[in-house]
């Protein structure tokens, strides 16, 4: 009985973290992020100016998105150990993860196509850039549902010793709430709710990084405890 497989999956999360740090410091194309008030000509100029950086971001973005999935898979597996009347929350969680990941990858691709030929008509560059921002925001809705489902299954866990500590449920609900403002960013071109604003961009990104880091340690604890108490298959 060992948990090598589960730990192996779990340790892809720090890998995602390292990739994120590399992307953040080596390719600072979006620090600070571009403003949605820019005209198509300014957007095209920005893309030409930051060509290498943006290429780096999209390649790393693709990898980071994928590297986070094993963490969510591990959460789903632990949700299946939670005792509810059915796996309905775990199913919702897996589907919502897939939807969010797909939207994130589409955002990445839209930026990738824009930077592939920055000499294209500025209108098209700007369109791809806007499309990328829309799809970059969209996973917020999926994270909200993922977190609410996880919280729901924790609250309803019938085990004498719950799989997830109760505070993880509160933490997930808090994270879900902090993701809500980002959805309103399509309505604003300036201020904290715009794509580059403090609520839509900075708060969301910080919350997400925090969330992933905390969930990593939560899962690490759960997997180790699982082995002590029950023994598990790899």
């Amino acid at each position: 009985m060992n948990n090598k497989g589960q730990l192996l999956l779990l340790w892809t999360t720090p890998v995602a973290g390292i990739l994120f740090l590399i992307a953040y410091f080596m390719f600072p194309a979006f620090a600070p992020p571009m403003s949605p008030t820019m005209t198509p000509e300014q957007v095209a100029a920005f893309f030409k100016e930051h060509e290498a950086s943006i290429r780096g971001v999209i390649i790393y973005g693709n990898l980071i998105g994928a590297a986070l999935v094993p963490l969510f898979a591990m959460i789903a597996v632990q949700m299946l150990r939670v005792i509810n009347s059915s796996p309905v929350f775990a199913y919702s969680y897996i589907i919502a993860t897939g939807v969010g990941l797909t939207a994130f990858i589409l955002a990445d691709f839209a930026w990738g196509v824009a930077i592939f030929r920055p000499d294209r008509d500025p209108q098209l560059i700007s369109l791809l850039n806007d499309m990328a921002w829309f799809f970059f925001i969209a996973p917020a809705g999926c994270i909200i549902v993922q977190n609410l489902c996880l919280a729901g299954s924790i609250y309803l866990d019938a085990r004498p010793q719950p799989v997830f500590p109760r505070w993880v449920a509160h933490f997930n609900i808090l994270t879900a709430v902090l993701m809500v403002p980002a959805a309103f960013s399509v309505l604003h071109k300036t201020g904290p709710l715009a794509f580059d604003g403090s609520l839509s961009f900075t708060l969301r990104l910080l919350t997400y990084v925090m969330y992933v880091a905390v969930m990593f340690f939560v899962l690490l604890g759960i997997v180790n405890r699982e082995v002590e108490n029950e023994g598990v298959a790899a």
Partner: protein
Amino acid sequence: MSDSVSVDAPGIKAPGIKASSGVRQGEPWYKNKKLDQYLCFWSVPIFYTLFGLVFVPLSWMMPPRSPDSSMAEIVAFMQSENLLFACVILILSVGLAAVGNAVYMTQMRRMTVSPAFRFAFMAGSITGPVVGCLFPMFCFGLGAFRPDYDPEILAMLYDFGYLSFIGCLGCFCLMWSMLGLSILLDKNNILPKWLGYYTVWQFVTELFAATVWIAKTGPFAWDGLLAFWFNMVLYVPWQIIVYFYIYKAIQNQPEHELPNVLPVKAQPMLQGNAL
């Protein structure tokens, strides 16, 4: 639970053990043991209400506009501010589509069919909301987000939006065919057999929408009598009826099938739910 109920639920396969015997789980704090299923079920009417709001009164994207509208009409539509409000609501509620589909899967799990059916269903329900829901609405939202785009670009987004919304049939046909076949093959009668036939009929008609990729006018266009309206007339009542029977299936699920009612002894490794 008896073996005939579920063919693939390791951990809770313990024939002959009744819920009353053995040590119980820590008695859960909630009285309704199927609370998780009911919570998820009731997200469905909420989702469809929001979904309806997004596509009808907010965006007036539905009923569909004509594929051969004049450029002036397209530009006026693509620039309406309400499209962005519709996007906000859709971003916040799109995840609920996952919950609604999970409710189906939970009942498919009780049917005597291979897990492959619900896994294929799951694959369809991961792709569906992105290509058939988020993407089309974003195409319209993008036009409203930056009104100074060339009319040519707005017209392309208009086509892309409508074609992906109405012409998106692959993943939905996959989902409904998996559901329909599961109902027909199931020996536990979780859902009525006639509903299986209705489901098959429904997804076969959905294939009619394939013509929207070719026709620009007439009954086979995306606003046409056959490609759109005939589908809708079959689909809307079907969707309501299916959820009604899903609700009844949740209600009728016997207590001894529920892991949170089963005694600890019936679950040797304290396994919760199998996928």
